């Protein structure tokens, strides 16, 4: 049990607890705190996968932008005065059982026998490689994603502005 493994197990624990909190918590803000914990855990796992740039981008984009956006939406449109009607506990338990069975079958029966094990190379992909491939071979998806972001900004603005004159 080296120190690296102990920290890895801690990150796995944080990810699992965050994911379970997101699903089980009653109030939406607690679910969001669970989501943020999950994102930090996944960022730690990215560092173990030799991808420190992706880890920092994950924290910057998801925790720094997406989580805050969702908190603002909860404050503006949150379910505070009307409790939503959820399924009963028995139904939830049965559905969880079905999902767990699906996970077990998929992982233990199919995935574990599919791949030839992991390759253990100490290859470090630098930010320069990522940048070079973004502008070299993957220029087309890059431009499409930028177009998508512009379209989504314009769409969000139009939706917000044009729904206001109902008073």
């Amino acid at each position, binding site marked *: 049990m080296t120190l690296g493994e102990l920290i890895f197990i801690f990150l796995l624990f944080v990810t699992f607890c965050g994911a379970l909190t997101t699903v089980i918590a009653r109030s939406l*803000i*607690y679910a969001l*705190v669970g989501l*943020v914990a999950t994102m930090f855990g996944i960022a730690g796992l990215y560092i173990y996968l030799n991808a*420190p*740039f992706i880890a*920092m*981008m994950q*924290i*910057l984009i998801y*925790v*720094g*932008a997406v*989580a*805050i956006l969702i*908190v*603002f939406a909860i*404050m503006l449109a949150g379910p505070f005065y009307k409790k939503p009607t959820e399924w009963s506990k028995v139904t939830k338990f049965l559905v969880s059982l079905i999902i767990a069975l699906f996970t077990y079958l998929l992982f233990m029966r199919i995935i574990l026998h599919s791949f030839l094990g992991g390759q253990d190379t100490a290859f470090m992909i630098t*930010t320069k490689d990522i940048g070079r491939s973004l502008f070299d071979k993957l220029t087309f998806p890059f431009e499409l994603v930028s177009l998508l972001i512009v379209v989504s900004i314009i769409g969000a603005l139009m939706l917000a502005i044009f729904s206001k004159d109902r008073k």
Partner: protein
Amino acid sequence: MERLTDIIALVGEETVRAIAGLIGVLIVVVVNAILLTWAERKVAGHMQRRIGPKEVGPYGLIQPFADTFKLLAKELLVPKDVAKPLYHLAPILIFIPVLVSFIVIPFDAQLQVKDINMGILVILAFSSLSVFSILIAGWGSHNKYSLIGAVRSVAQNIAYEIPLLLSLLAVIFMANSFSLKDIVEAQKGLWFVFYQPIAFLIFFVAGVAETNRTPFDLPEAESELVAGFHTEYSSMQFALFFLAEYTNIFIVSAIATTFFLGGYSGPVLPGIIWFFVKTYGLVFVILWFRWTFPRVRFDQLLNFSWKILIPLSFINLLVTGGILKI
């Protein structure tokens, strides 16, 4: 002495360096907080043509200790309806980005706790965590004024985060690396402030706005919203928010020094003295701002960021990229 080398051989040099670095970081944080508390009141006093505190110790130097003891001796008052996990988590969460930022700042050529390959990305990524903890503090306090103060503070923070990132990106273009030590080494010829004056100004203004200092301190102004998102916190938790804010001032000045003013390089004295001289010079300028400028109105504040600073930093980035690659 042999016992020391024995311990180092046993545990590994990296661990000893990490532990020594962490102890050094804690010392710097505490000393900086004490110094800034004293300096703020003295500078405020002298700028208002009065002397600051002078009773407690020579020139009022023991005043911060007296203030700290008073603050810690207060009762830790937890209101009844707060959401307990969120309320108690927020002051802890707001301190994490500050401590993480200290790991990558180069105080001298060898005095850096760890020279991570993406140093500046670590600092920027974790500064977005402090925004989240402000929201949690405002929400968990179960108080309308806290919530309004928290939302205002977050809106200001995310608005000024973008010019901060873009102005630093222009310097990263010039130095070709994310690591802070490489950026200081790349300023051996001429400091970057002469190559990129606009980026320096944008970064400094955005940094002052990030730390919620005047003229951008509407979220925590005393005459506006009681005290913003830390209204319901008392004694030790308030001290943590306070400490985080003062250390943030130091970190913003330290990053400005590293990126634009040459970091630890200087002619005669050892590097670390030059680093502290430059950083505390910028800290003094930030303290000076508080008693010089009036408070900016909130919509003027947001307009300034979205309509003026962001286009300006984009143009700066374009011009930098153009000059470098053409």
